[in-house]
């Protein structure tokens, strides 16, 4: 009896270990890849990780991370949001236009920007979820509309050329040696992680992402959750736009343009499947950080822009080849083999 009980316990432990391995392999890859990148960086371009470099790098990484977290919410539902760049461009200009460069209008500005983002998210969400249009085309079209609105809006805001000084000063202040933008981004990330992992709302959202049909059968409002994902994406993009406007002081006509591809790359590198499913907030943040470090490293190395594009593109392809999503699939196949199933105490078929 004792022997069989101990065998059962061992199998349960092995089974649990295999499950954890399968789950974590999806998200842990980016942490390992980032560690490798930092080591490479330390060897070939150590200045990238200097305090001076970090003072610009961390705010910019946080902005990419904010946009990536929004994208992650949408990708979890099996969708994609290509209007993030347009949302950032419009919201960053709204920051300048509404604030009139005055500190006392900052709160109003933030509320207006969030309001604009909610409207954009609702439009995307309703068109995708309720009307049932293809998210790729819908969000691309909405992005185009936003680009037009921004261009038109910007002409009327030329007089208010800068963000409030309180915002532009705040972004470069460094409590504990790191920018406020970084701390704000970190707080936002932790709150989002807690929301998704530890609250009923977050759990329901994850259930929709993992298996919409099962979630629907379980009585969860799938469509409502999809709309929430698009609204969440736009709100994240608007937070990114406020930070970005603060960093560059006057956002120009199309500040969102660099954020079309980066956030999607960060989400995929972090192990989220583009067909939807579970994802990790912290891994997404780490992927955004890694991409920004890579970019900065290429700049510090002084490579010409053409070569920077090539290296950056190749790095993303390599990242996708070894992305957590693929590794999890390979591990899953391995664990399905009869030998392992027997080892884990499951009956081989």
């Amino acid at each position, binding site marked *: 009896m004792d022997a069989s009980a101990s065998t059962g316990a061992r199998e349960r432990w092995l089974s649990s270990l295999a499950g954890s391995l399968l789950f974590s392999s999806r998200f842990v890859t980016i942490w390992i890849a980032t560690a490798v990148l930092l080591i490479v960086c330390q060897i070939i371009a150590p200045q990238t990780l200097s305090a001076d470099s970090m003072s610009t790098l961390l705010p910019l990484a946080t902005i990419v991370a904010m946009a990536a977290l929004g994208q992650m919410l949408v990708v979890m539902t099996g969708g994609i949001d290509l209007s993030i760049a347009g949302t950032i461009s419009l919201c960053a200009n709204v920051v300048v236009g509404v604030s009139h460069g005055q500190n006392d209008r900052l709160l109003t500005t933030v509320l207006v920007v969030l309001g604009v983002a909610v409207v954009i998210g609702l439009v995307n969400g309703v068109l995708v979820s309720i009307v049932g249009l293809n998210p790729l085309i819908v969000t691309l079209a909405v992005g185009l509309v936003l680009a037009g609105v921004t261009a038109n809006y910007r002409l009327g805001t030329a007089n208010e050329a800068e963000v409030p000084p309180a915002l532009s000063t705040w972004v470069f202040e460094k409590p504990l040696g790191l920018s406020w933008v970084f701390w704000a981004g970190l707080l936002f990330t932790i709150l989002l992680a807690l929301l998704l992992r530890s609250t009923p709302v977050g759990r329901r959202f994850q259930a929709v992402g993992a298996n919409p049909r099962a979630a629907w059968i379980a009585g969860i409002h799938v469509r409502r959750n999809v709309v929430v994902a698009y609204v969440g994406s736009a709100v994240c993009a608007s937070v990114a736009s406020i930070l970005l406007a603060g*960093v560059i002081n*006057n956002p120009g*006509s199309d500040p969102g343009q660099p954020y079309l591809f980066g956030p999607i790359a960060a989400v995929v590198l972090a192990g989220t499947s583009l067909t939807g499913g579970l994802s990790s907030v912290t891994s997404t943040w780490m992927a955004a950080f890694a991409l920004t470090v890579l970019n900065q490293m290429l700049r510090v190395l002084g490579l010409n822009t053409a070569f920077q594009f090539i290296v950056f593109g190749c790095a993303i392809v390599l990242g996708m080849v070894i992305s957590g999503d693929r590794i999890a699939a390979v591990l899953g196949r391995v664990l399905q083999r009869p030998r392992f199933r027997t080892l884990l105490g499951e009956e081989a078929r």
Partner: protein
Amino acid sequence: MTPRPGPRPGHTRRGREVHGGDDRPVLRRSRIALVLALLAIALFAVACGGDDEDAGGSAGGETTAQEGGGEVAPAGSAENPFGATLANGQYGENYNPRKEDLERALYSADALPSDEMAKNIVLAGLARVAKPVDQDKALECWKKNTCETGTGGDITVGLADGFGGNVARQIFKMEFILQALTYPEVGKIIYTDANLDTQKAISDVRSMIAQGVNLMVSYPDAGKALLPAYKQATQRDIPVALWSNANIGKPGVDYLTFSGQDICTIGKNYAKIINEELPDGGKLALLGGTPGNTQSPEWQKCEKDALNPNIEVVATADTNWTRQGALQAMSGILSKHPDLDAFSYDYGDATVGIIRAFKAANKPLDVIGTVQSDDNPLLCAWKKEGNPDFKVWTGSALFTQGRIALTAAMMKKQGAPVPAEIIIQGQLSRVDENSCRSDIPANGSPTSLVPPELQTRMFGE
């Protein structure tokens, strides 16, 4: 079955003649003879015309020039302070601009082109700034894409802009409109904005040809892809004048001319200042625009060639001509070279991003900067810094190039020989306390010839 014959010339199936009777060809031959005789007389008259230099003008244009032209006043005299070689009135233009207009647009007369005719065209373009213009009409035209000037003139002018989405280009547009409104013969202005879309830029030019514009000014953002469209216009005798030194095709052949800066001179001027300010040598970073643009590498090469050997170019980076790009580029450079002494760049507005990079790295702005355009945001950001060790020189943003391009095309219509290049020699000016202008919009340009009150109405209402 034999094939049914078709109608032969001169016959119809009903037996009626399609063409004229037998007497018509005789009449036509006599008309042709008359025309040839008149042509021969005209050619003889032209040949006897002596030393008239007009290469491309019509007979009508010459008549206007001769009618309007008087004696050329001596160079340096009150009537001709800038040394024009055409008399006021020739080709319908005045060549004596107000000194303040010239200095606002070009900093000094030294910037005038070395080529005589190009210089005349620039002077004519600037002289038109003094003409009164209905600002309400200008504002109306600026807000619309097509507008009637109200003069009833029979000339339609087109502005095919490759991009209109920033304040600078909107000021360019207004400069063009103000210049067009000084010509009573211009009855209609058509404007298009391709928004950096190459296909749209090409179709904009072609649609202007189809709409029957008489001349066209264009900013070739799409580069060489636009050449076939420009050639098509040129073949239809529509003068196409470009602004900016786009370095595409053969100016004078593929299109009428371009009005732009000598890019190499910009680099040489930068080098001169860096050499003077860093006699003991130092580290210099060169920042450019979008990857693959032809302008930035050209001035950078000329600057490198003219630098003292003790000046080390430690970095060359692209910025996409955006503040964000400039911030990221300078941040990378500062990481590796925290002791940077100077930078050279070609866009004033995005230089604000460079200042932000120094702020982010918490470094004092003790650097020398040479920048091509004097955009107000840079000038005001410099003033706000209040750092005497942050020494910046800027060149004129040259919004006047659009005006000059239009005047060149109008003079061509009047029969003037327009040179293939109208090259302005870029000048640099040290930024000081008075450079930041509060009477124009924050994003405006101090070197624009759009009156400050109109700039405010454009962007402030």
